[in-house]
């Protein structure tokens, strides 16, 4: 039992570090990584694309993919090592997470050889960014409740409807969309999956301003958008199956969101004072920070256990839901507690406040972490059903045609 890299892993890590040192800016000690911090800055997309090209050229794009997908034929653990190292640098590779992590594997699995050759290399090179058009206003946690229609018209399909929470739609060239092609079929049976050009006529992208004020997501409206039948991935009515391929790969793609944690609380508690001295010497503060620290360490070593499984050729299972479930609430609680310690002046925001305002920022982004990519409630269901094997809930939406499923007063 040890933490150290095997000699091969160590050599790979050294190669990665050399590449990153040469091509990216390292985060300063004590500088807190934040949720998509800086991603909205002007030029960020171009810089991200340029950096992805360098990764591609240096052999760090598609690390564990088979060579005939255009990948490096490496191991999952190499990908993990790369990700660990890149996390110490200021990059915006998350713009490529959906395309490379989720959609290209789907295209490689369900698409034609021609599609694979058309899309995968340019995605790996960073020439284009992809987005995933799944969620809808009426959907939410109930992803399959989507209503965006695709109706056949000769060799084409005509898409009408609305998607929401589309990450990066505003800088994406292409997208993958699940549509309802038969509303009279059962909910999961009437769906069909396509790729499409985000610049096609009738596609309108509107940014969503989040509660934190940032705009990382979009609504995307479809008005008579025509896609050719050759853009279909999988059979008509197979959309749910194809979507599952995309979503299964989400587990590989999803990382923990960086943000302030127990170590930052310790730093904060060194700065703040009560009448007896620095708060770090106050046992009440110590006990609370210790609780966060223990939880963070538990997550860290749980990840090490998963990596070990990967490194032996295993795959991450639904138990990886632990990371997101625990860390999202932890970030919210850490942020709230830090502000509580700062007291009456704790609501101030901006670069002048302790830890450059990282806690206040986290207060506003963390509620989103508990929702995006599977709510706390959905993750607990996944753990209960897929890990513990507990029975599913009673379903009212399984055995009736989709257009007969109750939807309530609000659609």
């Amino acid at each position: 039992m040890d933490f150290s890299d095997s000699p091969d892993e160590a050599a790979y890590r050294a190669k990665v570090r050399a590449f990153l040192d040469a091509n990216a800016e390292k985060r300063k000690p004590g500088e807190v990584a934040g949720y998509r911090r800086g991603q909205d800055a002007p030029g960020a997309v171009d810089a991200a694309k340029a950096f992805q090209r360098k990764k591609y050229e240096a052999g760090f794009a598609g690390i564990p993919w088979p060579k005939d997908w255009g990948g490096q034929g490496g191991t999952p653990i190499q990908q993990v090592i790369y990700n660990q190292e890149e996390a110490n640098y200021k990059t915006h590779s998350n713009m490529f997470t959906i395309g490379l992590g989720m959609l290209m594997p789907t295209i490689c699995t369900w698409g034609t050889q021609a599609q694979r050759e058309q899309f995968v290399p340019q995605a790996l090179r960073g020439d284009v960014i992809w987005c995933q058009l799944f969620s809808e206003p009426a959907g939410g946690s109930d992803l399959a409740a989507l209503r965006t229609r695709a109706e056949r018209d000769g060799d084409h399909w005509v898409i009408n409807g609305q998607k929401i929470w589309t990450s990066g739609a505003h800088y994406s060239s292409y997208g993958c969309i699940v549509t309802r092609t038969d509303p009279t079929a059962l909910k999961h049976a009437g769906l069909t999956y396509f790729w499409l050009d985000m610049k096609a006529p009738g596609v309108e992208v509107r940014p969503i301003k989040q509660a934190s004020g940032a705009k990382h997501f979009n609504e995307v409206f479809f008005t008579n958008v025509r896609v050719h039948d050759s853009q279909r991935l999988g059979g008509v009515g197979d959309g749910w199956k194809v979507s599952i391929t995309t979503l299964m790969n989400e587990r590989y793609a999803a990382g923990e969101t960086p943000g302030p944690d127990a170590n930052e609380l310790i730093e904060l508690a060194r700065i703040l004072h009560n009448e007896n001295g620095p708060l770090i010497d106050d046992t009440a503060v110590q006990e609370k920070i210790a609780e966060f620290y223990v939880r963070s360490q538990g997550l860290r070593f749980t990840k090490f256990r998963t990596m070990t499984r990967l490194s032996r050729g295993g795959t991450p299972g639904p138990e990886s839901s632990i990371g997101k479930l625990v860390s999202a609430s932890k970030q919210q609680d850490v942020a709230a507690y830090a502000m509580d310690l700062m007291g009456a002046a704790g609501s101030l925001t901006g670069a002048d406040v302790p830890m450059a305002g990282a806690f206040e920022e986290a207060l506003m982004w963390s509620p989103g972490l508990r929702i995006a990519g599977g709510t706390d409630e959905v993750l607990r269901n996944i753990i209960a059903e897929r890990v513990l094997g507990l029975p599913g809930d009673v379903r009212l939406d399984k055995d009736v045609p989709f257009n007969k499923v109750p939807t309530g007063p609000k659609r």
Partner: protein
Amino acid sequence: MNFDFPDELKELRAEAKRFLTAKCQPVVARKILDHGGSFDRALWKEMAAMGWLGASIPEAHGGAGLGHLAVCALAEEIGYAIAPVPYASTVYLGAEALMLYGSEAHKAAYLPKIASGATIATLALAEQPGPVVLDRLKARFADGRLTGAKLGVVDGDSADIAIVVALDARRGASLCVVDLKAAGVKRETVQTVDPTRSHANISFENAKAELLDGARGPADVRRLIDRGAVMMAFEQVGGAQAALDRAVAYAKERYAFGRPIGSFQAIKHKLADVYVAVELARSNAYYGAWALNSSAAELPVAAACARVSASDAGWLATKENIQTHGGMGFTWEGDAHLYYRRAKHLGLALGGSSEWKRRLMGELKSRNTSAMAD
């Protein structure tokens, strides 16, 4: 046993709810969020006209003379409406300080103007992040002059006067009233997690100030804060109730998997827990109101229980309201974040829960055993 508001105050609260339902939907707070402007002046004027600003001020000083329980009743509704007005600063803290410790001259000078809405008041306390230690404040009052700097003063940019906590050589922590338009006062608007309530950093450089002579040291300053905390607890409880009500309403009408999401135990038990937290907080606030109104010796304990309970309930209710709304809860356009921001602001404004828990235990541990066995 009569542990409830008297009927006439229930009627006042019902009236306030009717008024605020009509005039202060969340869109009013959103206007400040999106366009700035410190506070909603139209609403403030109407509150003045209805006598809300002078609710606790005696009629002799231009108030409505309704007493502190009336302020508590109104505070709950103001909290429910997340009204973007300097009510807490002006009424729970500013007017309260003047009434408690001001000279007759101070009362005559300021209270009528506060009651009429002409003067906005606030309390300037914190100087740096962290718990406020009264006897280590750096602001100094001497010879009618104040020097120091205060951080994140709520309504500091729109207030006309501030009650400033400063050290006086003889008394220690004291209260003085300062005209914020006077020479030597500089203010800078600052951003907080709740942009619907404006804040400023204020510095005083040998600024003209008058001592509130009735406050004879830190215990009296604490008493002001305790009294303010009780009234603020009602505002917090109101906000928590509003967040709960919105979550419940959404959970009834939003469907997933062919059923209202409120039929899933994950949602319904979460909201049951929020309900419990809000009710416990309300009960503690009632106790605080009793102590406030009767000037009972239990005030420090009652105020701490009310504040801790209300801050916790506000936090729980508003964050789980976002969660219940799912993605929509996390949009700028949705109102859920307005409640969340306000709850956090109020939960910090008079100090965080950790400070108040310590203070509570400081009180309790000095009690003897028999007094506690009730």
